[in-house]
């Protein structure tokens, strides 16, 4: 599956970077999501949790 991030929707809570630090980082200036790796195995638990825990719907998964 592919991960997509929407930096306009991002509210910089840091849940993605906390949950899946291999794929997500945060901008140094305002903490917004930075996608390091857009590919993940289908059902990857970390990527799935990162999307689920995002408070503003900025992280989405696509098949």
């Amino acid at each position, binding site marked *: 599956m592919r991960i997509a991030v929407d930096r306009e929707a991002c*509210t*910089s*809570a*840091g849940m993605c*970077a*906390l*949950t899946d*630090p291999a794929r997500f*980082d*945060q*901008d*140094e*200036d*305002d*903490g*917004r999501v930075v996608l390091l790796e857009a590919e993940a195995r289908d059902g990857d638990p970390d990527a799935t*949790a990162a999307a*689920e*825990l995002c*408070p*503003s*719907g900025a992280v989405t998964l696509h098949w």
Partner: protein
Amino acid sequence: MSHTEDVPFGMPYRRETRYDPPAGLLQLQEQPLRRIRYYPDGVEGWLATGHALSRRILADPRFVTGERFVHSPTELPHVFVSISEQVPPGFFLFFDPPEHTRLRRKVTGVFTVKRMKELEPRVAAIVDERIAALKAAGPGADLVREFALPVPALVICEMLGVPYADRDAFQRNSADMLDLARSVEDRNKSMAELFGYLMQLVPAKRADPGDDLLSVLAADPELHDVETAGVGLILLVAGHETTANMLALGTFALLEHPGQLARLHDDPALWPAAVEELLRYLTVAHNGVMRIVKEDAEIDGRHFRAGEHVTVALQAANRDPGKYERPGDLDVERDAQGHMAFGHGLHQCVGQQLARVEMRIGFAKLFEAVPDLRLAVPPEEIPMRSDMAVYGVHTLPVEW
């Protein structure tokens, strides 16, 4: 339309036990989204107690905070009602996009997961100092005064660049502004005093900048001084009261659940999960968060009308049996992820990654350094913060 009598008055908030939300509130979960009548005048509005619906409401931009809250779900006016009466400039919890976004992004860069990782040694040093002070105050001491309150206060003061020496005044004022037993007028007087304090600090920071957030904000040409003061105000108040109460109430809860504590003792790698579980189980933001319906909306077949008040009971959502098995049990080994102790949506807590670091380091070091920590009085004698916007204990007499 004539069902007014069936609509219950208010959200139950008086607890029967130390750690559980009121039984009457949890009973309402049979209908996870329902109408209630608000104080003081009985106007109808909404109460969400279910996890999934609470998440949907808080993630939905039609439910806002930038309007005036006038009705309260509880007899004692909710803090959303008192603060929204005179929202300080920059106090971005009560702003909607695009203003909310502009202000929030001014500070989120210093609260990232990475920045908090870098801050860990400093938090650890502060925790060590406070444990030493606690022991020095012994053989018995008040854990709130010696440890739970100073740790987050020292950390947020250092981050913001607020002199810790001024803590007496700002701690009194922030406690007073969150004290539900006080009148709205008195609470707002305390908030205004705290705002005034920050207003004089901002130009001083510009004149003599330090390596701190207020100095950065004071020098930012896109921020007026009143906004910087308001941003400082929300960070200062939210940054120490909540974490302090989690540290003290969390310690109390663990002391009363020795089996859980023993597991953490055997396997300290459980602390991060334990912190999430304590956040869920204790939900110190125990009066719910409020929103106002900005435009007519439909969710789950229910029709929300513009102007209606909505209360999202985080303390109930975190005990939703549809989300968590045996939600009333404190279980440090469960996966508590997805809890709503920090809210959800655009306003989800700015300081959550800091609070996590403070709690992980604070709890782990405290129980390691004082392994025979115990209550100095029977648990029933501990004064609970029932009438405060942030739940916890007023004092926690301990010995070792």
